[in-house]
């Protein structure tokens, strides 16, 4: 499973980023608090690329043969055998950025606001629909392939 952008419908509003950040903040239901109460604005795991008029959101492809998992020096990065989601155990991550170096999609972000960790899409673990998909005003993000992700390498 992964979230795919249909760039022809991406309005470039970046609400996906806003809601991704909110849902990964301590106040996942309250955007105002999420942004105003945290010492740092929460970091989004979705990244909207834009070069007008093209724009699209990009997040982890949840590769089946995820190079980030293979390359991770600490073993923090792993692929959930049940959901297929590639996730980062942030408590084990040391922020060495090897995953940044190898992810062919550039889908992993550096979160340096607290402890340095690699921040990436976790498909809003447990949610029926990831926050970015749910809040995209134009259906430009879709959940695809309940079975697995891409073979990235």
């Amino acid at each position, binding site marked *: 499973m992964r979230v795919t952008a249909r760039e022809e419908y991406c309005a470039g509003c970046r609400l996906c980023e806003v809601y991704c950040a909110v849902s990964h903040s301590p106040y996942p239901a309250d955007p105002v608090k999420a*942004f105003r109460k945290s010492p740092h604005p929460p970091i989004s795991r979705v990244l909207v690329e834009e070069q007008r008029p093209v724009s699209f959101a990009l997040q982890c492809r949840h590769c089946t043969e995820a190079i980030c998992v293979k390359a991770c020096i600490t073993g923090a990065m792993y692929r959930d055998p049940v959901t297929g989601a590639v996730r980062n155990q942030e408590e084990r991550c040391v922020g060495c950025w090897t995953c940044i170096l190898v992810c062919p999609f550039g889908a992993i972000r550096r979160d340096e606001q607290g402890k340095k960790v690699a921040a990436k899409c976790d498909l809003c673990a447990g949610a029926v629909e990831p926050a970015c998909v749910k809040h995209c005003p134009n259906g430009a993000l879709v959940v695809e392939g309940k079975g697995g992700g891409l073979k990235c390498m």
Partner: protein
Amino acid sequence: MSLSMATPAFLIERNLDRCIHCQVCVRQCANEAHGYDHEEQRVYSDDMRCVNCHRCVVLCPTRALSVRQFPLEFRANANWTAEVIHNIYLQAATGGILLTGMGNDRPYPIYWDHMLINASQVTNPSIDPLREPMELKTFLGRKPEKIVIENGRLKEALPPQLELELPVMFSAMSFGSISLNAMKSLALAAEAEGTYYNTGEGGLHKDLYPLGHRTIVQVASGRFGVHPDYLAAGAAIEIKIGQGAKPGIGGHLPGEKVGREVSETRMIPEGTDALSPAPHHDIYSIEDLRQLIYSLKEATNYSKPVSVKIAAVHNVAAIASGIARAGADIIAIDGYRGGTGATPLRTRDHVGIPIEFALAAVDSRLRDEGIRNQVSLVVAGSIRHSADIVKAVALGADAVYIGSAALIALGCHMCQKCYTGKCNWGIATQDPNLTKRLNPEIGAKRAANLLKAWKHEIKEMLGGMGINALESLRGNRLMLRGIGLTDRELNILGIKAAGE
């Protein structure tokens, strides 16, 4: 001129307690009414640029925004209103024609709202449309005077007809005035709900050829995109003579809207103005219209109904009669509230007549002359909801065209700035940054939902009248009563007053 008399029309209110400076508003405002101050790390607004399209308000994740009329007032003056004064300032500064978009917004009476629909009580039964059959199917096209059956077969096949599952079609809106995604939304919705959409005079985009059977292709004075494949692709051909929002004048699609796709579809070079002359230069009289109608029939081997669309003007009844006699199979009449992408303000607001009167007059005239059955009558010009449709059909329409209502379903917020090409809802624009804001799958769903909802409502109202087939309502003016109308208006509408 260094001094500008311009003042903001709208005031953007930002609740700073709720604003998270996420810049969604900044990114979404094509008019640049919102900006981000990197030094201060906060968003700000420029009221002057706001057109009140609500895009920012709707998308703001924290509901921090609101827009209202700018509170600046002139000394109270019922005659020299602020609008009049501002328009003079603008014309004094530019020397230009005032433009606007969408339909007439003046407070003229809305006659739909002065008609009431009948319902059955006791003496004849109402019908429950949820359980019982309720037919809305409508055929548009010329009907022969009579049918001849030989050996159990029709001697002559019925002339070509459009088959509608409900008496509503999407009216002509060109690719150019609206985006391809808007076009696709309507085309897909028409396909889903069994009705038709109309190319306007913008040609038929290649992506829409597969939906040709749901397309009414228009031939207008600019003849944009008109070629044999185009004519062959449509289910019907509509000759556009006039439009309710701008009766008697042509249209200019500015060159900046003629990008690659529009250029390909209209078959004109990129960046050229697409000028639609006020008249068809081959039609200066009614027999010329006949000549054009038949040239189109000849070119398509008499396989498609030909519609003629006119604006509702003073002698609309006589004109309609002439059109029927000129060989048109469908007459579409667009009332003075009809919308448009761009029109001179004064023309929009002061030319034409209400569709309610035009419809009543035309239907009566055609019946008087015994030719009502030869031609189908489609009315347009601010059909807002299903009750308007029921009233239109009762007055005599076969079907209605909806334009503004369809666009509102797609997200239009009626800011009337279509002509700027900066439609923040991706509808009336060709800016690729904006057109992609309208996902045609969503658009199609919404437009189809609107039709579905109206279909249910029409059925409910029909059931209430004890009618289970739309044709029994058509021209059935007994089902209408007027309220708050003068005798003369009642006469023109051909209906009795409530209580009579």
